[in-house]
C-alpha cells in the first residue's frame, strides 16, 4: 500500500506539469488585457503600454513561461497583477471559507443522505421510498441560487433567525460560524443530498438482493444488523466514489453560493481573477484545484481498500 501511495504521489508531478503548461497557454490565448484593466477607463493606449512593459507582458510568451515556471519550481506562485500581493497569500486568505463551507456541507450531506438512502432502500417500493425519491428529484431540479434566495427570505428576512450574508471563522466564534454557515450549507447540500441518497438507495437495494443477505435472514440475523452490518457496509464503495466526486465538484463549484451569501472564498477569488485577467492568480488557483482533485482521487482509492478487503493495490 505504501508503495502504491508513493507511486500515485509521484504521478502527480507529470499531471501538474501538463496542467501548468495548458493553463499558462490557454489563459493567454483568451481575450483580456490585465494592463488595460489596471490602468482604468481614462487611461490612454500609451499608459497601458507602459504598464504592460512594467509587468513584463510585452515579452515573448515563452520567456514569460520560463520565468513563471522557474518561480513555480521554487514554490513562488508570483504576484497578483490586480492586487499587487503574493498569489499564495491571496489563496491562503480565501482557503478557509471555502474549506469550511465544503467540509461542513459534505459532512451534512453524508449524515443526511446515507441514512435517507438506506431507509428508502429498506422500504423499497413503499411510500417512504417514494417520498425520498421525490425529494431527490426536487433536490436535483432546484437551482442553488433560487433555493438560496428562498432560504434568505424565509430565515433571514422573515423569521430573522439567520444573517443574510458573511462568513465568520470558527476560531473567532463557533456560534457565529454556525449561524453564518447554516443557510449556505443548506443551499449547497440539497443537490448533493439528492445525489448521494439516490446512489445509496440504488446500491443498498441491489445489495439487499444478494445471496448472503438471504442467508443472513435465514440464520435469524436482526433486521438492523442486516441493514447496517451487511447491506450498507457492502454498498460503501460506489457511495464513497460519489462523495469523492462531490467534494471535488464542491471545491470548484461553490461560486454561486459564495456570491449569494457573500462568502469570501476561492470561488469568488477565481471569478474576480478571471474578470480582471489576473493571470498569476488564475494560474495559481487552477494549480491548487488540480492538485486537490488529484489528492481527493488518491484518498478515495485508498478508502476503497479500507472498506473492501478484496481491493488490494
Amino acid at each position: 500500500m505504501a508503495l502504491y501511495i508513493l507511486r500515485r504521489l509521484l504521478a502527480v508531478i507529470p499531471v501538474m506539469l501538463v496542467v501548468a503548461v495548458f493553463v499558462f497557454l490557454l489563459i493567454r490565448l483568451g481575450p483580456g488585457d490585465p494592463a488595460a484593466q489596471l490602468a482604468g477607463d481614462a487611461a490612454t493606449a500609451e499608459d497601458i503600454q507602459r504598464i504592460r512593459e512594467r509587468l513584463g507582458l510585452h515579452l515573448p510568451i515563452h520567456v514569460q513561461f520560463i520565468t513563471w515556471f522557474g518561480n513555480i519550481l521554487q514554490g513562488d506562485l508570483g504576484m497578483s497583477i490586480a492586487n499587487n500581493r503574493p498569489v499564495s497569500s491571496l489563496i491562503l486568505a480565501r482557503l478557509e471559507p471555502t474549506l469550511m463551507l465544503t467540509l461542513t456541507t459534505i459532512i451534512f450531506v453524508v449524515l443526511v443522505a446515507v441514512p435517507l438512502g438506506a431507509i428508502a432502500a429498506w422500504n423499497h417500493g413503499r411510500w417512504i421510498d417514494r417520498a425520498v425519491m421525490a425529494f431527490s428529484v426536487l433536490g436535483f431540479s432546484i437551482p442553488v441560487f433560487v433555493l438560496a434566495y428562498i432560504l434568505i427570505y424565509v430565515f433571514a428576512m422573515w423569521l430573522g433567525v439567520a444573517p443574510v450574508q458573511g462568513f465568520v471563522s470558527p476560531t473567532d466564534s463557533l456560534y457565529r460560524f454556525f449561524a453564518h454557515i447554516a443557510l449556505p450549507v443548506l443551499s449547497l447540500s440539497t443537490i448533493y443530498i439528492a445525489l448521494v441518497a439516490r446512489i445509496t438507495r440504488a446500491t443498498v437495494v441491489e445489495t439487499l438482493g444478494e445471496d448472503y443477505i438471504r442467508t443472513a435472514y435465514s440464520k435469524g440475523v436482526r433486521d438492523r444488523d442486516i441493514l447496517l452490518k451487511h447491506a450498507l457496509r457492502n454498498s460503501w464503495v460506489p457511495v464513497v466514489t460519489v462523495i469523492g466526486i462531490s467534494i471535488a465538484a464542491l471545491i470548484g463549484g461553490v461560486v454561486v453560493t459564495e456570491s449569494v451569501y457573500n462568502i469570501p472564498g476561492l470561488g469568488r477569488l477565481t471569478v474576480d481573477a478571471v474578470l480582471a485577467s489576473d493571470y498569476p492568480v488564475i494560474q495559481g488557483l487552477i494549480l491548487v484545484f488540480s492538485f486537490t482533485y488529484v489528492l481527493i482521487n488518491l484518498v478515495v482509492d485508498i478508502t476503497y481498500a479500507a472498506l473492501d478487503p478484496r481491493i488490494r493495490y
Partner: protein
Amino acid sequence: MSITTRNWTAGLLAAVVAIPAANAAFVSSADAEEVVLRAVKHSALRVLDPIMTTAYMSRNHGYMIFDTLFALDENFEPQPQMVDTWEVSDDQLTWTFTLRDGLLFHDGELVTSDDVIASLRRWGERDAMGQELMRYTEEMNAVDDNTFEIVVSEPYGLMLESLGKPSSNVPFIMPQRLAETDSTEPIPEQIGSGPFVFVDEEFEPGAVAVYRKFEDYVPRDEEPSWMSGGKNVHVDRVEWVNIPDHGTALNSVISGEIDWMENPPWDLIAVAENAPNVVGRQLQPLGSQGMMRMNFLHPPLDDPKVRQAIMYAVEQESYMQALVGPPEYYEVCGAMFMCGTPLETDIGSAPLLEQDLDRARELLEESSYDGEPIVIMYPTDVITLSGYPPVTAQALEEAGFNVDLQATDWQTVVSRRASMDPPEEGGWHLFHTNWVGFDVANPIVSQGLVAGGREAAWFGWPDFPEFEELRRSFAAADGAEEQFAVAEQIQEQAYENVMYLPLGQYIEIAIFGDHLEGVLEGPAPIFWNIRKND
C-alpha cells in the same frame, strides 16, 4: 412520549425561541465595542494607488486616507483644504501656497512642501489636467517646510481648479518617499494625511477593506461642502464590504447588517425605498454621462459626414430608456460638460436630441460610405453598458448602415479598444462607455475631447490640432465668463466633428439605513461627518 423524546422536543422549542434573540447578538456583536460603519461599494477595491489608475474605487480609497490641497465645494468653487493661505504674483506667474500648521501623515511625520511637490509631479504624469498644468509649469520650489511655489510660463486660469480636481485622478498628497514611485507602479505603502487610516492587515482584496479614524487628523473649521470643509469623523471604523450579489446587498441593508449601499440597480431602488428604516438619496450631484465613441483612424468613420450621419440617426431618449428605465432617474441633456454645471450649454446638440433618419440617410449618401459593416463592440456583462449597443445598431440599420454587432465581455472591450488596427484585423469602429459627470465637466478633464491623435488622444484617436489649441485656450481663459465662451466654442466644434456623442445623463441612488445622520453629497462617496445612531 418517552422522557427522552420530550426532552428533545423541549430543547428544540427552546432553541427556536432563543435563536431570534441570539440572532441580534451575532449580527451586531462586532459593533458593541466601537462604532462601525459598513458600506457596500459599487465594486471591490483592488488597486491601492489612486494615481496609477483612474478606477473610481481607487479614487474613493484615496479620499479616505489622503488629503488634497484644495477641494471643490457645492458651488463648483475650489476651497482651500490642506492649504492655509495662498497668493499669486501681479504678473500671474508665481503662485505661493502655505500649508496649514500641524498636518500629519499617519506615520506621525509632518506634511512638508517636499511631499506636496513630489505628489504633484507624480499626479502630473498621469492625469490629463495634471499634464496640462505641468505643461505650463516651469518650476515648483519649496520655500520652506510649510510653503511652496509654482512658477508658470504664462498665466494659467485653472490653477486652483487643477489642485482641487474632484475626480480621477485626484491630486492627493502623499509622503515624498511614496510619491517618488514610478507612476506606472503602485505605491508600496498606504500612508496619507487624510481622516482615515488604512488597516492593511485586515485588507482582503475583492472582499473587504477596513479603515480606522485618524485620531491626529486636524479638520478645518468650515462646514463641510462636497469634498471641502471640515472632515470630522464620528465613527471608529469603516468597512467596505464587497457583496457581488445586489439582492443580497439590498437584503443586508434592510436587515441592518450593512449601513450603506452605494448604487443599487435602478429596478431595486423601489424595493429599497418601500422597506422600513431605509432611505434612498442621490449623493453624487451630477450623475453620469453615457458616451458613444467612434474610431477616427479607419474608414468609414474617418469621414466626418459618416460620423454626422450616425449623430442624426440616434437620439438620447432611446438610450436612456434602454439603460435606465424610469424617467425620474435620467435626463436628456445635450451639454457635453453636463447639465447643472457652470459650463452647461446645449449649443450644437440639436441633432442628437431628436432622431432624423432622413437627414442621416442624406449625409450617408453624400459620404464615402460604401456599405462596409460597422463593427460595434457590445459588452453583454456590464448592466450599465449593455443597453447602449443594441440601440445604436438598430438606429444605424434604419439609417442604411450595415452593422456588425459583436457581443463580447467588458474586459475584451477594454483591451480591444486600445488596438489601432483596422476593424477587420481585430480593431473596432464604435464602442460605448459611461463617465462620472465630474470627469467630463470641463474641456481639460474630458478625455473624449482630447484631439491629439495617436500620441495623446483617448481611444478613437481624433486628430485636430486647431481643436487642441482651442481646448488649451480654455486653460488660459481669464475668469468664468471667458471660460464659458470658450467652452461654447469647444462644444460646438466637438459636435461638428462628432468627437463623441453624449447619450444622456443619469443619476444613481444610494440607499442607507435611516439611523445614519449627516450623509453628505459629493463627487465621490464621503464617509466623514456621518453619525451612526442606535
